[in-house]
């Protein structure tokens, strides 16, 4: 627990310092780290209700193996992606985690798809493009989200 807390502090610190400008473009990043065992415990305790509240059905399908078992490290990476995106968007207006979805393209590369109020917030904030990277190893999953911001966005507080 102590180790996880210190890692969490590092992640928060990295996110806080992660807004930079480069030329005329503006970029914002968010990062999050999740313990895979925590996701496994949530599935064990709350079952389908946890999965339904947090993940889209497509995400769950992507994280289910041929025998019907959940690939928990992939689910943990997708939870990290949701938190990383919320951090990058600086959005605290109430978020359904299902509204931040990770999808895979034909090459297997992950992409973010935003829905509902999160998509509306991103539009108001002037998000013009986004990129995501996921990884998992050693019992942890991490996601980094990079947002490119339109410099002439009205009402952006990012």
């Amino acid at each position: 627990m102590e180790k996880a807390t210190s890692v969490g502090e590092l992640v928060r610190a990295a996110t806080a310092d992660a807004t930079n400008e480069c030329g005329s473009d503006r970029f914002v990043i968010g990062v999050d780290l999740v313990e895979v065992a925590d996701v496994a415990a949530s599935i064990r305790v709350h079952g389908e209700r946890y999965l339904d509240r947090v993940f889209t059905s497509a995400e769950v399908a992507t994280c289910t193996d041929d025998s019907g078992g959940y690939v928990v490290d992939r689910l943990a990476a997708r939870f990290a992606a949701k938190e990383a995106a919320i951090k990058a968007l600086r959005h605290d207006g109430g978020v359904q985690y299902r509204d931040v979805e990770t999808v895979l393209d034909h090459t297997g590369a992950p992409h973010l798809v935003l829905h509902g109020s999160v998509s509306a917030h991103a539009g108001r904030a002037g998000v013009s493009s986004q990129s995501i990277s996921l990884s998992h190893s050693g019992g942890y999953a991490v996601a980094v989200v990079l947002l490119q911001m339109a410099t002439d966005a009205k009402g952006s507080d990012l």
Partner: protein
Amino acid sequence: MSERALLIRKVLQGHGHLVSDPTTIAEDASLYNAGLTSHASVNVMLALEDEFDLEFPERFLKRSTFESIRSLCAAVDSLLGAEHDASA
């Protein structure tokens, strides 16, 4: 201490994975400073829904709702009040 706050502390004890003892933490102390992660807050939300037979709508699914025992009490009070009003 209200019965509702005691139940919230019990939920935090079972699902919050805090580094501080949730049975003794101050009502206005930051749960995030006490070790609550965003993922653990989902577990707390689901457990509170079970405990109080309610559902957290989107507008309550934000960091500030889970900031402290006091803010969780306010959220549960609001949701139970809303349900009571709807059934009246």
